[in-house]
């Protein structure tokens, strides 16, 4: 093949390659157009879908009805929650009140038993023993004494005690010291603070006058409480008041009864002597 023929052949192949390249370029252009068209279509469809969906929730009558129902139910739920809160508070108040009433009931029952026991006998020694039991078991005193007024000497004399030796308790003149003053005034005495207190027979932590109306016949002087009892409760103050009245009448009646029994026995002795 000559040089001229070779040139013609090369030019033909270049044309062919150019044609193929042009076709490729056209095909790519078509693809880009199609892609743009499809993307536009996707955006269109998305917007339509969005609009259609929005319209369904907002405008359909069923949806409106349901929304209203939800609002009503939400409101009712809030009201019910409020009512539950109120009922819970009431329940708590009732529970607290129930405990208070139970405590009151128990206190009344204890007071009933104490007064019943005090008036169950006319034996002076038994009455004193019951007073000791009440002070131990209901008040929680470990060391205390009962002093009664001798109207002849106007002095208080110890007659019974718990945790102490009765004979070691002092005789106290009316109006003298804390005990004598409690008899004089007829008022209960309570120490301001039990902290650091050391037993002093002249200075009890509590002194309760035993009164029949305004007439004081003796006192209960407390010097020590149980270790587990570190303060007085409201029930204790009520018990002290009860003791002040019931113990006094029980002591007074039993003493009167013992005296009259003794006198009766003496008179009976005389009568027996005279009639024999």
């Amino acid at each position, binding site marked *: 093949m000559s040089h001229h023929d070779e040139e013609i052949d090369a030019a033909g192949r270049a044309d062919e390659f150019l044609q193929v390249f042009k076709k490729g370029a056209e095909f790519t252009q078509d693809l880009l157009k199609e892609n743009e068209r499809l993307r536009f279509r996707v955006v269109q469809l998305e917007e339509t879908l969005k609009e259609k969906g929005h319209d369904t929730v907002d405008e359909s009558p069923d949806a409106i009805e349901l929304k209203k129902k939800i609002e009503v139910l939400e409101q009712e739920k809030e009201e019910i929650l409020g009512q539950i809160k109120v009922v819970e508070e009431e329940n708590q108040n009732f529970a607290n009140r129930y*405990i208070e009433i*139970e*405590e009151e009931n*128990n206190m009344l*029952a*204890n007071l*009933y*038993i*104490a007064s*019943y*026991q005090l008036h169950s006998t006319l034996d002076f020694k038994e009455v004193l023993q*019951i007073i000791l*039991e*009440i002070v*131990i*078991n*209901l*008040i*929680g005193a*470990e060391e205390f004494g009962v002093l009664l007024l001798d109207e002849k000497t106007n002095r208080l004399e110890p007659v019974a005690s718990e945790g102490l030796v009765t004979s070691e308790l002092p005789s106290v003149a009316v109006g003298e010291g804390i005990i004598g003053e409690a008899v004089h005034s007829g008022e209960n005495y309570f120490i301001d603070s039990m902290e650091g207190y050391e037993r002093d027979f002249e200075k009890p932590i509590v002194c309760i006058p035993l009164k029949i109306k305004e007439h004081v016949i003796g006192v209960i002087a407390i010097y020590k409480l*149980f*270790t*587990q*009892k570190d303060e007085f409760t409201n029930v204790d103050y009520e018990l002290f008041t009860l003791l002040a009245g019931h113990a006094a009448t029980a002591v007074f009646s039993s003493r009167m009864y013992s005296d009259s029994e003794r006198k009766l026995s003496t008179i009976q002795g005389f009568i027996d002597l005279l009639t024999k």
Partner: protein
Amino acid sequence: MTGYKVLVVEDSPTMRQLIVFALKRIRGFQIVEANDGVDGLKKLSADKFDLILTDINMPIMDGLKLVSMVRNDPNYKETPIIVITTEGATEDRERALALGANEYITKPIQTMKILETVKKLMSV
């Protein structure tokens, strides 16, 4: 609820009455009283009790001795025992519980605590 037999062992008549009066508020309780440990043992052997409440400081036989003897009796190995006492020291409590008492309550009387403890032990 079927009836339960309860023994209250306490030398102080006032305290005994306070405990009995409180227990009577629980329906179905039959309460028997004893003055001291020996009296308590006599009543325990004469009948079958479901619950025992006892004081510690009592004449003739104290409450700790009673608890110990009750626990050695095969009939009362599992019977709940509540000690109600003036002794508030920890070592007294531990001693009573070690001997076999189920609960330990200190005086002065705590009616609500006694009732709560009894109800808990008897599941009433």
